[in-house]
């Protein structure tokens, strides 16, 4: 195929193998100048790997790469940077104790008399941040700023190096809806300047509204590249998963039983020693899903942590199955029937260096049948692991690989398998589908509904309003550590919740429900 002269990037026949996996199998990919090109695929399809090959972070085993119609051997990121490629990684590549400016100029520092010229550096950062409307605080430390700002720092890092081809790997997975809107504006202003963008996401709506074209890959193979205005979201979902996907959740009317969890007037502090929960009260019944809706940072994290014994409460009562828990202790709570899908799967959910079968028994490792006396019964553990991997459709070459070699979505399924298999009375699911593909989301959503119909109580904490609305039976809105109101699902509309999430009192929102 002759290269068109309007291509920013052309990748031909890219193959990349990992032990036991072919992550990319002869993939072709084209990026036109000035376009936003979405890259779509299930978890583990090989999107990140393909982009890492383009950026020189990984070296492809086979295939050729052309940048601006010139063949380039991208052996390391320096080559890519010199050819105008910038990448915002799925897991941010920022040095937490460094300032915003230090992170941006790292590797390309302006100097004066052999010293870093911080004045010029800060000014440069201010200049480009103004030029593209990427608001950051140059002298703040990265560890102290919000995820949204960290992402802007990542984009600035690329722009500072003069990138005109930008790779954004799942930039929206960690952003609030407002932040996503902002990002989209930034992306548009970038393409107006003639820059080209590759955009990885799992959200089909975003593909449709943001991208010009979309390339779908499945199990490492190219499926197709199409214009976004010629396909529907359903068609995209089917292309990506290879089967019919039902995007809407189907569920029966809930049939709630007795109260399992009752929280009253709960107070707790955040890591910065400020009060994050300010008298939170609600209850969850058997056989129902209570959704907690809210903008990030309104106490959701602290709430989950207190309920799972990972954070100390300042005051208030927690009743579980009718008994008051005065000193929540993680192990006790778990033994009494609380399961937890944590919001940060890599930090709290898994031990990344451990094998799958080891991760699958964490928390139950000291009990029969996994342990007998002082010994682990590894044969039994592996057998169980194989069963869970099959039952929960975890994509992996075997149960003996490390958790970190799984793709994000499969890591999440691993946690779900472990937590569901404990047969809990209460399931606390925090952001259960963050960064997960539609096929897996369908699976996770159906599993949550299944657990509900199995008469379990489910507390769902999510930043995705869509997810809250499609799964919950009742919706509690949290704002500044307080429950603003609890609505039955019939009364909960997107606008109403949106207003309440922004702090409007329930009376101000016409026709609010009863106060919880």
């Amino acid at each position, binding site marked *: 195929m002759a290269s068109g002269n309007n291509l920013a990037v052309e990748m031909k026949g890219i193959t990349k193998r*990992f032990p036991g996996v072919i992550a990319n199998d002869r993939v072709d990919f084209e990026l036109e100048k000035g376009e936003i090109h979405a890259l779509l695929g299930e978890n583990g399809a090989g999107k990140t790997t393909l982009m*890492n090959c383009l*950026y020189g*972070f*990984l070296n492809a085993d086979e295939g050729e790469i052309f940048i601006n119609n010139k063949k380039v051997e991208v052996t*390391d*990121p*320096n080559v890519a*940077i010199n050819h105008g490629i910038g*990448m915002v*990684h799925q897991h941010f*590549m*920022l*040095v*937490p*104790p*460094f300032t915003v400016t*230090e*992170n941006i100029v*790292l*590797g*390309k*520092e302006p*100097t004066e008399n*052999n*010293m*870093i010229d911080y004045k010029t550096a800060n000014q440069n950062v201010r200049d480009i941040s103004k030029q593209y409307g990427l608001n950051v605080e140059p002298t703040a430390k990265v560890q102290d700023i919000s995820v949204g700002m960290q992402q802007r720092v990542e984009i600035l*890092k690329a722009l500072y*190096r003069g990138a005109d081809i930008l790779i954004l790997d799942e930039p929206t997975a960690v952003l609030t809806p407002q932040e996503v809107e902002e990002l989209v504006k930034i992306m548009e202003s970038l393409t107006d300047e003639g820059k080209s963008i590759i955009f990885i996401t799992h959200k089909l709506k975003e593909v449709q509204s943001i991208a010009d074209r979309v390339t779908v890959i499945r199990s490492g193979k190219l499926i197709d590249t199409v214009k976004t205005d010629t396909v529907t979201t359903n068609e995209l979902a089917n292309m990506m998963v290879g089967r019919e996907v039902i995007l809407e959740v189907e569920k029966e009317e809930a049939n709630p039983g007795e109260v399992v969890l009752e929280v009253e007037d709960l107070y707790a502090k955040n890591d910065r020693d400020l009060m994050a929960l300010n008298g939170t009260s609600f209850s969850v019944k058997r056989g129902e899903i209570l959704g907690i809706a809210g903008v990030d940072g309104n106490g959701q994290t602290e709430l989950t942590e207190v309920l799972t014994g990972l954070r100390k409460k300042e005051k208030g009562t927690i009743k579980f199955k009718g008994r008051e828990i005065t000193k929540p202790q993680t192990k006790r709570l778990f033994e009494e029937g609380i399961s937890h899908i944590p919001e940060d799967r890599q930090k709290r959910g898994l031990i990344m260096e451990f094998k799958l079968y080891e991760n699958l028994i964490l928390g139950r490792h000291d009990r029969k049948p996994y342990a007998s006396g002082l010994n682990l019964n590894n044969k039994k553990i592996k057998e169980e692991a194989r069963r869970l991997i099959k039952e929960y459709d975890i994509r992996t070459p075997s149960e003996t690989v490390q958790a*970190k070699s799984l793709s994000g979505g499969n890591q999440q399924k691993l946690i779900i398998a472990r937590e569901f298999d404990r047969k809990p009375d209460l399931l606390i699911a925090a952001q259960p589908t963050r960064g997960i593909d539609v096929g897996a989301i369908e699976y996770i959503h159906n599993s949550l509904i299944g657990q509900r119909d199995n008469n379990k109580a489910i507390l769902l904490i999510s930043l995705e309003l869509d997810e809250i609305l499609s799964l919950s039976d009742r919706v509690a809105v949290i704002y500044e550590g307080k429950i603003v109101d609890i609505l039955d699902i019939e009364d909960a509309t997107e606008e109403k919740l949106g207003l309440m999430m922004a702090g409007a009192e329930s009376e101000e929102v016409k026709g609010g429900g009863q106060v919880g």
Partner: protein
Amino acid sequence: MLANLTALLSTTLRMATPLILAALGGMFSERSGVINIALEGIMLIGAFTAMAGSYFFSPWIGVLAAVIVGMIIAAAHALVSISFRADQIVSGTAINIFAAGITGFLLRLIFGDAGQSPSVQDVGTWKIPFIKDIPVIGGVFGEQIPFVYIALIMVGVSYWILFKTPFGLRIRSVGEHPAAADSVGINVIGMRYIAVIMSGFFAGLAGASLSVGLLDLFVKNMSSGRGFIALAAMIFGRWTPQGAMLAALLFGFADALQMLAQTIGLTFVPRQFLLMAPYILTILALTGVIGRSTPPAADGDPYIKEEV
């Protein structure tokens, strides 16, 4: 009394000198993400090399040789722990054991004595005009072995390198988040090699300060734990040059106090307690009793590109 005070401070400075130098070495290595407990062994070999250099040539040639040998041994530690990704503690321990063995062996082979070398020429002292005439201060800073001045200057130089230059920023980035450094085109492996070899430079210099500075001969196992105390100073000083210097001075003071107490026959505190001080203070620093001390995030982790 005043004479005692001057002597005490002057001894403090001298005893702190090898600690400051070695701590700076440890700092560069750990800031880049490589733990270097081989400081102890490199110091010992440095001390021997400096003595031998002085014996056969001149004291300053001895110092130069100590520094070069220090860098070579550090390069071996770098090879094993960075390229072969072996356990850094094991590699460091191996070098320490090797150092004790090889210096003992060479001591017997060349000088035919198992305990100590003959006396050699040391580097003498430097007199600083004007300063030496000021009371007390002159007694402390006016005339010292050259290593004292070198160490103090090195603290400033290290601070400048680490916190003011692009090179320092890159060293620190590699020790905090190597994948991030890699993603902006910084050569992680290369930076770590340089940092570890720098630590060999400092540890070699620290060793020389023992055998041709503080003393004028080599004694078997003469580093006697100073490499570890230097690591303690580095931790206590929170991986910063100025902090490490202050910690080293504190430890040097405890040492000087102990020596003074012995010479004037004071026994109100058993000297063992003063000798313990560095370790106790370090443990307190690590447990957060006196200000939390957190190491670089990637300290001790080998970098594997395919596992990002």
